């Protein structure tokens, strides 16, 4: 924004600072304090113990499993999110609200239930269980079950992030591009994508954070076999239950570092945008 009209399109300084202060107090109580608590307990016994904990083979294998899980579930939900948002935001059709609500549904399902439904289907007493067992295919209490539960839990993020944004933007720009002779995919990549980049970035970040941090649903389908089917959150629980507080919070702090990734991704994105504008 230019200097001339800055005073007309923003609030008086005192209001601004008041708002900033309120937001900061709220975030301090709800975010900074818990984060400080995690790190203070993680480093209670010093950096040496902290690093030692992270080098444990069980910790490493849980990190690996969490990364695999996120690497499979996030791209799938990203692809789904973009397609769903395109269909819902750019077109009108009957039952649209029902569809949006159905997409929201996994959020409202208790994590415990999100895990249980896959046990009900793939478990030994479930619909497909006996068949799977006779073919020696493991879904629940193995990695596929963990991935499935994670996909379910993180299902709505990208779609939900994009739908309100794309609806707010309308479709005039895309229509103009098509009239000018662009193909459908060109329109999407050159017109739509730059417009929705923030929503997309937030969606992926949230989806990824939740995929890595999910506990309840994964706990039901994991089987908790040490070194094999424990994700990072499950490993944290194990350490905590072993009265190994420091180690538990050390591993948990790894997930808090995810916030740093958010920071890096956003900074890069902002930098690129600025570069584009300059050229």
């Amino acid at each position, binding site marked *: 924004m230019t200097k001339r009209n800055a005073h007309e399109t923003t609030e008086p300084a005192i209001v601004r600072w008041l708002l900033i202060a309120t937001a900061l107090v709220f975030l301090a109580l709800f975010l900074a304090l818990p984060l400080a608590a995690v790190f203070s307990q993680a480093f209670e016994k010093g950096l040496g113990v902290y690093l030692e904990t992270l080098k444990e083979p069980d910790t490493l294998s849980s990190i690996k499993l969490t990364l695999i899980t996120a690497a499979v579930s996030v791209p799938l939900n990203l692809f789904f999110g973009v397609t769903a948002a395109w*269909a819902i935001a750019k*077109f009108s059709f009957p039952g649209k609200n029902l569809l949006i609500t159905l997409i929201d549904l996994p959020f409202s399902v208790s*994590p415990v239930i999100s895990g249980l439904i896959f046990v009900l289907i793939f478990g030994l007493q479930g619909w497909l269980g006996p068949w799977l067992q006779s073919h020696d295919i493991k879904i629940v209490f193995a990695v596929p079950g963990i991935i499935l539960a994670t996909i379910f839990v993180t299902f709505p993020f990208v779609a939900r992030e994009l739908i309100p944004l794309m609806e*707010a933007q309308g479709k005039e720009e895309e229509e103009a591009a098509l009239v000018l002779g662009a193909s459908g995919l060109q329109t999407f990549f050159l017109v739509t994508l730059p417009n929705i980049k923030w929503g997309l970035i937030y969606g992926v970040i949230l989806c990824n954070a939740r995929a890595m*941090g999910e506990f309840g649903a994964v706990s039901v389908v994991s089987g908790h076999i040490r070194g094999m089917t424990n994700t990072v*959150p499950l490993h944290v629980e194990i350490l905590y239950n072993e009265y190994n507080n420091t180690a538990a919070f050390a591993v948990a702090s790894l997930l808090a570092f995810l916030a*740093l990734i958010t920071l890096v991704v956003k900074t890069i994105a902002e930098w690129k945008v600025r570069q584009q504008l300059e050229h």
Partner: protein
Amino acid sequence: MNIFKHQNNVLPGFGPTLGFTVFYLSLIVLIPLSALVFRTAGLTWGEFIATVTAPRVLASYKVTFGAAIIAATINAFFGVLVAWVLVRYRFPGRRIIDALVDLPFALPTAVAGITLATIYSANGWVGRFLEPHGIKIAFTPVGIVLAMTFIGLPFVVRTVQPVIEEIEVELEEAAVCLGANRWQTLQRVIFPMLLPSILTGFALAFARAVGEYGSIIFIAGNMPMVSEITPLLIITKLEQFDYQGATAIACVMLLTSFMMLLVINLLQKWSRRYAE
């Protein structure tokens, strides 16, 4: 698909995108959830009603849905504030705070619950200052609201934030040119634009809070009739190998959340029309 064809739209890709959406939705969400309904169908109608309206279950609905509405309202208010401050104002530490907003998702729910209990229990960092004044947070229903607010925090911020980022300053300038003061601009121009995303954020935060289990059990106290949440009762049923009872309660929760989400989504549609 014929009923869709008549719409006046030059954009391509409606068929494939909607097709894939419905396919993936069915595969990941609807078919698995139907297992829940089928399991419950093993109960007779009378048994079902008896299970889902037992006094303790009713009390738990009140606690769960009540706390979730309060938490989502807190989040809606502060979420918009935080999003606005982060996008519109410049102050030291802004980027770090922006990155921190996602923390409640990344932190495993159990860690969140334990940490909140550490801070807000009678011997905790904050709790010890509240305790002498007779304010108890951990192990009371207030603790439940606290945990629900924490886990739902990113929703409102992250749904409202991109919309604020995309608001064109020209709109505000136009309002100014037409003689609106700042407050009128906010009220008449900005707020209507944000309302759909605020409602989305509210709905998501609410939905998430209703289902939350991991963080709450560490801070709720879990006293029957007072601070016992519905997901805990589901677990209790499972512990007795009572799958049908568990799925019955889960179905009621699912249906209630679904209805509330549907109402909010319809409200959102209406709010968009109002904005235009």
